[in-house]
Every structure is written in structure tokens, then in C-alpha cells.
């Protein structure tokens, strides 16, 4: 099996969208390994394939060709039930527009992944409050999302992503709808999570945010154009064709 210790391991992954006669090559051969405990930013111009890549990482979508191993297991061989279970337990998704259920309270939103995991009520209650405390929303449990600020909504979404203690957090422009202060708070949260050993991958257009990550991956026209490691001065350019 293709494990080499990586949580995420992609080999020559492509994605072609076919809409009628038009074929869009969203990904054109991506090789990417992400290990446990990494803090990664994905940057690149609009339409370059960042979201496509993240959706494949998160098992929401399948590559057209190429190999993807998650925690050493080939995703291509998994059934829908297994994929649901992976999304539920291994992955925590965070979206640009929060995607909280409007009619449910903060508590109920955070509870959702625990319900899908089949956790008992008493455990859910305790775990939801734990997660809300982690993101500083313990006092907002019974409020509806509409009563929260954008930053609070995204923090609720982070709490929801954490509910089942996933190995990796995947965030698609999590600060895109937030002012810089609230956005900074979200990245603070990511840093804390990362320090506790969780992998975090976030798409961003904000270079200030990207520079707070340990590794920056630049996507261009469906390919990884360059990679850069922050902090320890190691710069690495991987130009591919």
C-alpha cells in the first residue's frame, strides 16, 4: 500500500468536468503529499482548481484519473457508505459561507456530525459544549445562526468541523466573507488546532494568512505551480509540466 506516513497522498490526479460538449480540465496531474500535523495554505488565481482539489481531498468528489490515498487507503475503492464515514470522522469541512442550518441553534448545528456518527445523546451534549468552548461560543449555544456575527458563525462552523475529532481540517476560503479581524481569529483557531497535532489545509486569497501557514502551495491552471515552506527558511520550487 502507498502509505509513506502521509495522511494525504495524491499521484497524478486529474479532474475533467464534462458539461455537454465542453470539457474543463480543472486538475491536470497533481502530485501532492500532506503529512500529519501540517498547516498548509493553497493559493492560486480564481478558477485554477483549488476547490476542485480540496473537494477530492475531502472525498466529496472523485478524481477522473490518478491515485488518491487517504491515510494509506485508496479512496477509489471505497463505497458510498465508507466515504460518508470518512467525511464524518476523518475530515472537518469549513466553507466560505459557513453553511450552518438556519433553523437550528448553534448547539444543534455542532451536534449534526455527532448524530451522523451515531453518538449517544449524553456524549453529544458534552462534546458539543466542549467544541463550543474551544471556539469561545459556549454562551451562544441556544442562539440561531442569524443572531451571530460572521466571525461567530465561522467559529461555530469550526466547532462543527471539530465535533468528531477529525485528522484533518479542510477550509475553502474560510475568511473570504469575514473582515480581517474576524478572519485573523479564525486563523488563530487553526493555529491552535495545528499545535495540538491536527492537520489543517486552507484555501485562501489573502497572502497575510498564507504566510501564517507552514507551507504554501500555489495552484495554476490545474497544476501545482510552486511550493514554499515558511518559518525554517526552506524554500522549494517544484515546477512541473
Amino acid at each position, binding site marked *: 500500500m502507498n502509505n509513506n506516513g502521509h495522511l494525504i497522498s495524491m499521484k497524478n490526479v486529474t479532474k475533467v468536468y464534462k458539461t455537454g460538449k465542453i470539457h474543463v480540465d480543472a486538475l491536470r496531474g497533481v502530485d501532492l503529499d500532506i503529512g500529519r500535523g501540517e498547516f498548509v495554505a493553497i493559493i492560486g488565481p480564481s478558477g485554477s482548481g483549488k476547490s476542485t482539489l480540496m473537494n477530492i481531498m475531502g472525498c466529496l468528489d472523485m478524481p477522473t484519473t490518478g491515485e488518491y490515498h487517504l491515510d494509506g487507503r485508496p479512496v477509489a475503492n471505497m463505497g458510498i457508505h465508507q466515504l460518508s464515514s470518512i*467525511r464524518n470522522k476523518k475530515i472537518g*469541512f469549513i*466553507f466560505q459561507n459557513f*453553511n450552518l*442550518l438556519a433553523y437550528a441553534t448553534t448547539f444543534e448545528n455542532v451536534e*449534526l456530525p455527532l448524530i*451522523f*456518527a451515531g453518538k449517544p445523546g449524553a456524549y453529544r451534549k458534552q462534546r458539543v459544549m466542549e467544541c463550543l468552548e474551544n471556539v469561545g461560543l459556549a454562551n451562544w449555544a441556544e442562539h440561531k445562526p442569524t443572531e451571530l456575527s460572521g466571525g461567530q458563525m465561522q467559529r461555530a462552523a469550526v466547532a*462543527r468541523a471539530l465535533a*468528531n475529532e477529525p485528522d484533518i481540517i479542510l477550509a475553502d476560503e474560510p475568511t473570504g466573507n469575514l473582515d480581517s479581524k474576524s478572519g485573523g481569529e479564525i486563523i488563530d483557531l487553526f493555529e491552535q488546532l495545528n499545535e495540538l497535532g491536527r492537520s489543517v489545509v486552507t484555501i485562501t486569497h489573502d497572502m497575510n494568512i498564507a504566510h501564517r501557514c507552514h507551507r504554501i502551495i500555489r495552484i495554476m491552471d490545474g497544476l501545482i505551480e510552486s511550493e514554499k515552506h515558511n518559518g525554517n527558511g526552506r524554500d522549494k520550487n517544484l515546477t512541473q509540466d
Partner: protein
Amino acid sequence: MKSLVIFKQFFHDVRRQKLRTLLTTFGIIWGTAATIILVAFGNGLYIHQEKQFLGLGERLVIVWGGKTALPYKGLPKGRWVRFTDDDIDMLKREIPEITMASPEYAGMGMLTYGKKTVSQNVIGVKPEWGAVRNMIPEAGGRFLDEIDLDYRKRVIFLGTDIRTDLFGEGIDPVGKYVTLRGTPFLVVGVLKQKDQNSSYRGRDTRKVYIPYTTFKTMWGHTHPENMIYQVADPARSKRVEAEVFKVLGRKYSFDPKDEQALWIWDTNDSLGEWRPFFEGFRIFLGIIGVFTLIVGGIGTANIMYVVVKERTREIGVKMAMGATRAHIMFQIIVESLLITAIGGFFGFFIAKFFEKAFPLLKLGEYVGDPVISPNTVFVAIAIIGSIGLIAGFFPARRAARLNPVEALKA
């Protein structure tokens, strides 16, 4: 699973689709009410008919003497068979399954009270006859009894309508004397009003009854018009009939297989013959009702498709959070079941209300009052449940098959 969230979501969806949900629920209410009411009518009609048949009496067989159609033991065919009172007693003695047997004498007679005179059918019978023919007297009166019979008393039991003609409606004539063929008769009772849709020689309410012994002395008849007997078990009525042919055939020398020798009307038969008709009618009404319900079900399915469409993004989010297909489908199906359950609930109460209100229209005499049987309710619940399930299933399956990425973009 997450019971509370499901209800929240349901009310959220209902609010967002107020008119549509209202119309759909109304469709289910209407369908349920229509189904139950129609079947209840079928039931009521059947019970009504049964009661009317039984107005004649239960488990009765009426026998007239006939004309032989087969030669027997050297005797030619074409001989009249006329039985006597003794023959009737003999049948009762010899055939244990006959629980009652009475002769029936009949003749016209002028009946007078004060200035009023009617010309009526006068029937001469035994006291037991009254019990099996459901000749229930109005309060304060009685039917003929053994003493009347043994002493050939001049006592008379009046049909309801005759009482009305002679005395006026609701007047109690018991203890008064009427004149029959010039002879005074003491009125001992009046028939309580009853429904009856099968009869011979007219309806019971338009006749008068006297002991057959009295009848014979006044009219001079030697043979009864016919006899009537009651069997213990209607299912064995045919066997008893064969016995009657055998016993009377032995006495009057006719072939027990000669069907023309006696004319028999087995009332056990007639009700049985009608049964499949009413069963069919009830099923027919039920099917009409079920079709209305199915239309309501299509409405429910339609609204659930809209719900799925409106909630596409949310379904995508749930999929990203690890919801399985079962989780997604469960929610939709539960909502569909809730709509049909609420509709069914109100539909049932409308039907129940109708069942209680209809008798006030006093039409029951003609078509019978609707009766909601437990069976109807049980079947209706099963049908509504299945419709809710099916109406939810297809939209739910569509939801579960959504591509999560596409759904998230919605």
C-alpha cells in the same frame, strides 16, 4: 435520531411552503375522509339491507304446497300437494333441526272500529310464529299466546299501519274491541314499527294477526295457505329442506327429488345471494376513495420534491458532514409521513363527524346510516401510511443521490 431537529425542519419547510403544504394536506384530508365515508356508506347500506331482510325474520323457510312433476310409485304426475296442521307438527317432531314451525292461514276480512272500516289481510298463526317473525309488540301490548290458541279466543294483533288507519297514529288500542267479519275481537297488541324489504302477501305492518284455531272456525279453511319454519343453523338449511321433502313425500307419496311438489322460499338463501353484491359495492366505493387518496399522495410527493430542491445545498452540507444516504432519506420520508399523518388524522375526524351527523338527516331509512367499522379505520391507516411512505420515498431517493459538490454549489 435527531427527533427535535427533524420537527424543527418540518415546521421550517411548512412555513416556507405554506400554501402548497396546506393544499396538499387538504388533499390528504379530503382523500381520507372520502375513503372512510364512502366505505362507511357501503357498510351502512349493507347493515340496513341485512336488517330489512331480518325484518322478515331470521333463519326462516316458507313452504307452499305444489304440484308433482314426477310420477312416483305408479302415481301420475300433476297431483296437488296440500299439507295440514298435523303435518307441520309432524315435521317439527321428526326433524330436530327445525326449531319452530307454524301454519299460516290467510284471508281477507273487513275490520271496523267506530266509523272506520278497512279491508285487510287476516293472518292466522301460532304464538311462536310471532317470535321468529320479529313481531315485536309496542310497549303495553303482547303477541298472541298459547291460551288464545287453545281456547280459540277472539283476540287480534294489529299491524302498525292498520292501527293508524283505525285509531290514528300513536294511539294505544290495547284493550279495545274491533269488529272482524261482524265478530268483536279484543286488541292485545300492536306491531312495533319495523323495516322490512322482503315479504310475501304484503308488509307485516299492513296485516292483522289472530290465532289460527280462531281463523279456521271463522273462515272454515281446512288447510293452511303455507307453513313457515325456522332452522337451527342456516348453513344446514338445504339439508333440512331435503328432510322436509322426504317426510312429506312419504306421507303424500311424491318423489323426494320432485322439486315442484313443494314451493320453498329459503330466506337464508336470499341474504346470502346479496352478500357478494354488497361486498363488491363496498370494495368499489373503497377504490374510489383510495384513488382520491392517491391524488393526495401525488401532491405530497410533489411538495417533497420541492422541499428537496429548496434544501439541496443543505443536503450537500449534511453530506459533507458525513450524512449517509439513509440519514438524508429519513428526514424527507418522515416529513412526508407527517403531512399524510396530519391529513389522515383530520380526515378521520371529518369522517367520524359525518358518521355522527348523517343520521340527523333522517335519510337512513332509505340508504342506511354510514358505519365506520374498525376494519375500515385499520385499512385506511395502512393505506395512508403506504402513501406517505411512497410519496416520500422517491423525492428522498433523489435527495440521497445528489452529488455533494453540486449540491453545495446550489
